[in-house]
């Protein structure tokens, strides 16, 4: 999956938008993980993760956090969103200290992620570099719509829904915060950044 890699928008808009992921490796370190995952979620929450989830259950924008925690199991994949470099640093420091043995990935602007790694004392091992969009780009929705829809990397969010909600926000019929959360509920992974979406819908 590369669903957290390809988020689009102006460089300024992409600042402060980080996705965290914790992964087990099939057949190697994928057993007896439930308590570990619950602990990782607690660390992420403490660090300030504004959204998180497990794709099989949903994100905290759609499901009560306690229910997601209860339903975590060895095959679960947990992911979430940070909105500041300091949150990333705090998360990585705690994960390094706990040494759970799970792979940890931070997706974001490299000019922000790499210094955060250095500050937290972790050493980047592998990077998946984003090389952008190729092909029939003229078929894509407008850039400001794509900036919102691409925050659900599996593209469960329709451009038309974003347009409709943005019109309602502009007409004062719904708050930008409520509209952003409504969109975020469609992303089952929990990697949708509703705070960035709120700013984009207000713009």
């Amino acid at each position, binding site marked *: 999956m590369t669903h957290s890699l390809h988020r689009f928008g102006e460089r300024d808009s992409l600042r402060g938008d980080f996705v965290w992921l914790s992964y087990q490796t099939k057949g190697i370190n994928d057993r007896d993980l439930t308590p570990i995952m619950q602990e990782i979620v607690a660390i992420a929450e403490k660090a300030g993760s504004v959204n998180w989830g497990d794709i099989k259950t949903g994100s905290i924008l759609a499901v009560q956090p306690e229910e997601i925690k209860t339903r975590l199991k060895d095959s679960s994949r947990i992911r979430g969103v940070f909105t500041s470099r300091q949150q990333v640093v705090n998360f990585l420091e705690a994960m390094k200290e706990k040494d759970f043995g799970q*792979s940890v990935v*931070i997706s974001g602007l490299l000019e922000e992620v790499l210094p955060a790694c250095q500050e937290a004392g972790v050493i980047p091992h592998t990077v998946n570099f984003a090389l952008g969009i190729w092909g029939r780009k003229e078929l894509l929705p407008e850039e400001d719509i794509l900036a919102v829809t691409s925050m659900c990397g599996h593209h469960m969010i329709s451009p038309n829904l974003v347009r409709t909600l943005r019109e309602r926000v502009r007409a004062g019929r719904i708050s930008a915060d409520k509209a952003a959360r409504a969109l975020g509920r469609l992303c089952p992974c929990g990697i949708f950044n509703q705070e960035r979406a709120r700013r984009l819908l207000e713009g």
Partner: protein
Amino acid sequence: MVRINPEKCRACGVCLDYCPLEAISLVPSGPAADVFSETTVVREPSGGSPGKEFREVTAGEQGGVVLFLTAGPLPDTSRQLRSRVAYIDPSLCVQCWVCLRQRVCSFGAIEATFPEDFYHLFQHVISDPVETTAETGVPGRGTEEAKTNDVSGRYRRGEVGVAIDMGRPGLGCRLRDVEKVAMAVAAAGLVLEGPEHTPLAKLMADLKTGRIQEASRDLRVLSVIIEGKCSEGKLPAVLTALRRVETEIETVFTLGLVSRVEADGTAPLLAILERLGFPRPLRGKVNVGLGRPPAAET
């Protein structure tokens, strides 16, 4: 597969906004009516516009019931009849089940049946990230790529992982376009990943050439990833092939390049990209090396 039950549909149009690929429309007539046989005329209405003639068409032995209604005066004006019904175009729908899972329809009109064959099952599993691909054991589009490389050792120093997200962002793609791209990069030296790593391999008739099974070429999915790896030396040829084939497809793709990196995040790959005139990548997904046991270095 997903369909809309016109018995329950109230033509409110809410579902239209939720479909990522605009596969749902409100139709007074049209494609559905063309393929279904008429069996009844006029039925008791519920909601919609009064004073319109209503004709229901059923799918005969298929058991599905669909639409259609034409405008015109109705003899019995006490009946309030629906003038339109929502319809999912099967040629556009990729079975992502956003409409179903999100309970978009307040009237429960969106229904699912079991996929009719392997290809439609693949279409659903690959388009709905909640599903898990059996071979890889990974939910979503089903690949771990760089995320567990600190443990799996899938990508070694001197190698480049290539992840081509066909149809992404948000346009979807036909597998015939996937085949064009896969064959182009395979011919340029990319070694395509097998079914243990990536779901697409199951539809490859020939993993060495990237040829897709003929019966699946018209299948449409929300996105699917062509994955492979090559030496750093072969990367320029692979990128050149992508530059050529991007003009020959009817959709888009996003490209991710996976590389082992130094402690500061630099990699020989970045110098190669610079030489080829690519701007330095702004975003990346950084595996921070906390996985245990660590993959053996070679």
